[in-house]
């Protein structure tokens, strides 16, 4: 054992420079895992320690509809039994706000919340300039707003803004708010007003989307019994109830999922590092054949020799993993405090302390060491076949018969990686998919790379010395071509692919597709406002808007030939439990097509008939002639399915509806209208139209599609940046593997170059060889990555995102050229000292 350990020390001393790259490969992957996990865990700790503040109450009961008498009775009855309960009401709705100053022609969508005195039960407000929150700031027409609204409306504290029919004085600016909807999509900045004032704005007209809430505070031990008692009865009233612990659980689950997926990405980076480790070890073993033969000649057993090198790999694995942890620590320390504060504020947290977490560090270390050993073991096992006879007769390593140990190690590697991936993702299925997907991509890249190398082989018979040898170098024994192609190809594949997908998404969301697409959406137009809104829009845009009548409805049952669903619970289990916006008309829109049954004629009918979108048919197991029961504003409506439609959801001119009713039944029911219009061009004209619409019809919300597109683009940019960073780490791994491969084969290259130069090759010839060799390698890697990215974009757009595939050739070309340049430059620069060494010294050393 002492001998083994001493030899490990000596070997490390002699070859640490060559193996430094091994180190870095492991470190990058481990660093990625530790940093990603630590960040998410830190956020998780901060969030779950403040969940009460996130809901601002112990229990929140919420309804999208005005409270029904039944629901209120249920809540009242349950609360009446609780001795120490406090409750208050709150309402949230998206609406428009505009400055009271008529000279400012701007109106913006805001997230309005009305709260009662005593809000919040938990958590504290942080207002600008250290102002302390008190309900008096809201009472009597006061409003607290987010800072971004001040900029958007060009107003300041003290100014008045108009919301609905009410005028509110801005009395403070909210920096942090308890009870904000965590992570929910927001239509606009928060405006907080008094609950009673909100009721007086006239905004809660018919069909308005608003969340009515009851916030409850009660003793800890009473929370679960109350939630359990109310959950089922309220569900049938379409009312949700949840405790702060439920929120905590939900946040914890979501964070855990995010953490696991991000760690999986880190793991994939580590696998790339593993490929680097494998490549380094393979070359290292080739360079150690003579030393191993000498050791065996001097009496060392195969076990001792293997132990020396396995221990060496383990030491490097530990070292690399520790370096990875240090890297992660460095990255975390480098996150500017302002970013952390911003993130904390956005999440409604008091503060967010980033730092390495013990569990992330332990996981990173274990995964780093296991992956190092798994990838290095295969090449190291080759040492068993090195015979001392190699000292007398060079190169006599028999290919041998089938090596069961190597096969077993291969199986161990596959199972080990699957286990680690599953551990990281916390799911066998995800681990299997990740490993399988990675294997398929890597295998494809490998085969394509091999094919391309074969294609360029004939160039090796060319006349130019430098060119011929450069091409031959790509296929020489012990070459790193396939490893570099795999690693760099994967990196460029990720980056090019992700950018191409982003380009496709932006195109899909862009309103530039089609002729005259709508870019402004008007919602909550009341029946008596329809005419006025239509006239105003026609006046400003020159076109009368198509006002679509809409109602909110829920499916409550199905009586069909083959399917009978009696309860809301059964509908919910089929994924159809939410509230739908429905409409009625006597014709099909341009984006609709009947695929089954017959669409009604233009005669109204008092027999309810419904045309359903085709996906509904499979979900509810419907057939033509079946009866679907709806709850429309508390009234039950049983409609016969008379046709099935497809809807082109990309074409938004006429909207899209899952349920379309025949005119005659719903016409007289109370309903509101929505309109998709093409707004005027020019920022000022758009702002004026929005303002005038809101001024004339205060409850109407105007959503500017161009701003939504800009928001989506921002979100996509953020996501692309995040994915690009991951792709960048993958590419960095690829470049590291490239540098490592060059470094590892440099000794062989030094010798060859020394011989070439002794035989008369000039430095220029050697440089041309290097440029051609690495340029070709980079080009092939770029082609492989680019082709893979095309395939990835096609598959993702078609099957996952279900949008049109628009190849973005310039992204592929730029990616290809950039990959070729990076590989060429790195390869040549890392090999330059081949030129500096004097040939004689190199030849004597051999």
């Amino acid at each position: 054992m002492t001998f083994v350990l001493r030899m490990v020390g000596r070997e490390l001393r002699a070859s640490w420079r060559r193996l430094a790259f091994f180190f870095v490969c492991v470190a990058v992957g481990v660093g990625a895992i530790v940093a990603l996990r630590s960040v998410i865990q830190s956020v998780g700790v901060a969030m779950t320690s403040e969940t009460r503040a996130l809901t601002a109450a112990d229990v929140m009961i919420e309804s999208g509809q005005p409270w029904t008498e039944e629901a209120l009775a249920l809540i009242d009855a349950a609360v009446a039994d609780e001795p120490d309960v406090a409750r208050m009401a709150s309402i949230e709705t998206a609406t428009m706000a505009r400055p009271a100053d008529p000279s400012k022609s701007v109106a913006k969508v805001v997230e309005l919340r009305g709260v009662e005195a005593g809000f919040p039960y938990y958590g504290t407000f942080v207002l600008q300039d250290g102002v302390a929150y008190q309900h008096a700031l809201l009472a009597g027409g006061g409003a607290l707003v987010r800072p971004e609204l001040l900029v958007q409306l060009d107003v300041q504290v003290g100014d008045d803004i108009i919301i609905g029919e009410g005028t509110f004085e801005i009395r403070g600016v909210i920096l942090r708010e308890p009870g904000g909807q965590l992570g929910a999509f927001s239509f606009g900045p928060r405006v907080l007003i008094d609950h009673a004032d909100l009721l007086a704005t006239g905004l809660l007209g018919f069909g308005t989307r608003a969340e009515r809430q009851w916030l409850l505070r009660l003793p800890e031990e009473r929370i679960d019994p109350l939630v359990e008692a109310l959950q089922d009865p309220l569900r049938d009233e379409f009312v949700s109830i949840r405790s702060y612990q439920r929120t905590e659980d939900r946040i914890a689950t979501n964070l855990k999922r995010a953490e696991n997926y991000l760690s999986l990405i880190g793991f994939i980076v580590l696998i790339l590092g593993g490929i680097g480790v494998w490549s380094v070890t393979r070359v290292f073993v080739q360079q150690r054949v003579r030393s191993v033969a000498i050791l065996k000649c001097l009496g060392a057993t195969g076990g001792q020799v293997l132990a020396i090198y396995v221990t060496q790999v383990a030491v490097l694995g530990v070292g690399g993993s520790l370096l990875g942890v240090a890297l992660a620590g460095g990255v975390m320390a480098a996150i500017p405090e302002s970013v952390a504060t911003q993130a904390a504020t956005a999440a409604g947290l008091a503060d967010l302390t980033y730092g390495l977490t013990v569990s992330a560090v332990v996981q990173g270390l274990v995964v780093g060491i296991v992956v190092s050993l798994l990838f290095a073991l295969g090449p190291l096992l080759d040492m068993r076949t090195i015979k001392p006879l190699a000292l007398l007769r060079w190169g006599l390593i028999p290919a041998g018969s089938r090596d069961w140990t190597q096969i077993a190690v291969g199986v161990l590697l596959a199972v080990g990686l699957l286990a680690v991936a599953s551990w990281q993702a916390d799911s066998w299925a995800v681990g299997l998919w990740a490993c399988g997907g990675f294997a398929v991509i890597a295998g494809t890249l490998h085969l394509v790379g091999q094919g391309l190398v074969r294609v360029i082989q004939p160039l090796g018979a060319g006349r130019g010395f430098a060119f011929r040898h450069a091409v031959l170098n790509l296929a020489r024994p012990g070459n790193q071509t396939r490893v570099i192609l795999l690693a760099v190809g994967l990196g460029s594949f990720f980056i090019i692919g992700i950018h191409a997908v982003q380009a496709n998404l932006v195109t899909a969301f862009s309103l530039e597709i089609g002729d005259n697409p709508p870019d402004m959406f008007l919602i909550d137009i009341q029946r008596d406002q329809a005419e006025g809104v239509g006239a105003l829009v026609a006046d400003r845009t020159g076109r009368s808007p198509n006002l679509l009548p809409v109602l909110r409805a829920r499916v409550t049952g199905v009586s069909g030939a083959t399917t009978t669903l009696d309860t809301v619970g059964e509908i919910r289990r089929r994924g159809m439990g939410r509230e739908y916006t429905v409409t009625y008309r006597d014709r099909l829109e341009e984006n609709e097509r009947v695929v089954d049954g017959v669409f009604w004629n233009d005669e109204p009918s008092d027999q309810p008939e419904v045309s359903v979108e085709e996906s509904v048919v499979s979900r509810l197991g419907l057939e033509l002639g079946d009866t679907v029961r709806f709850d429309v504003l508390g009234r039950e409506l049983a409609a016969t399915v008379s046709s099935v439609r497809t809807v082109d959801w990309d074409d938004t001119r006429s909207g899209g509806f899952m349920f379309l009713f025949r005119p005659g039944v719903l016409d007289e029911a109370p309903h509101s209208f929505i309109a998709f219009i093409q707004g005027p061009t020019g920022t000022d004209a758009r702002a004026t139209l929005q303002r005038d619409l809101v001024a004339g019809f205060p409850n109407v919300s105007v959503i500017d599609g161009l701003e939504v597109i800009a928001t989506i683009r921002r979100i996509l940019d953020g996501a692309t940046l995040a994915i690009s960073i991951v792709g960048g780490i993958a590419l960095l791994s690829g470049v590291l593997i490239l540098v490592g491969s060059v470094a590892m084969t440099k000794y062989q290259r030094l010798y060859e170059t020394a011989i070439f130069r002794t035989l008369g090759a000039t430095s220029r010839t050697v440089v041309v060889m290097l440029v051609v060799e690495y340029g070709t390698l980079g080009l092939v890697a770029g082609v492989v990555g680019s082709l893979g990215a095309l395939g990835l974009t096609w598959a993702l757009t078609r099957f996952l995102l279900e949008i049109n595939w628009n190849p973005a050739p310039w992204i592929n070309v730029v990616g290809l050229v950039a990959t070729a340049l990076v590989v060429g430059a790195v390869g040549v620069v890392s090999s330059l000292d081949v030129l500096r060494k004097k040939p004689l010294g190199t030849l004597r050393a051999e």
Partner: protein
Amino acid sequence: MIELRNVSKTVVSGTEPLTIVQPLDLSVAAGEYLAVVGPSGSGKSTLLGLIAGLDLPTTGEILIDGEAITSLNEDALAQLRGRKIGFIFQFFHLVPSLTAFENVLVPLEIAGAANARDRVATLLRDVGLAGRAHHYPAQLSGGEQQRVASARALANDPPILLADEPTGNLDSANGQHIVALLRSVNATRRTTIVLVTHDAELAATADVMLRLRDGRAERVPLVSAEVAR
């Protein structure tokens, strides 16, 4: 005591079998100094490799001190070499990543010998390299490297020393130094030596000469050996 019974070695060269060593019986007594001579390709080095257990014979049996090494596995052979056989190569074969001192230390460490470092110091002093102990092979001349290799071969005081063209890459002075070392070891420690060489002068320093030609062996007693002593 080294004993070869009907030992032959045939390899496949291209598609044709090529017999390098014809069936051979050979016995080398303990303390004997045998020189194996013959032209290039006559099978000298192969024979030495077979005796060291570095290769397996195609036929026959090889016994070292009565133990049939042909039936031993790789690890047992490695341990046998560690205990009983020292080997000097024409191309030195030092581990390039270890210093001269460490190269000599390795066999002692493998054998778990006590006072290994003192022994290494003595050995290096004996071969005149005390001052170069911490140099790497690349920093030593060919003669110095061969002296380190010789010290390493003698580290465990093996009863058998096999030398494959030990002076083949050395100048005359360094060659003389190695020859003197071999003679001294044979004389003082009664180490059995099998020396492969095509240098007639070097071969003449042995007790007995085995001449290989076309894979066949002919044992030639050397009278001059007595004279040389």
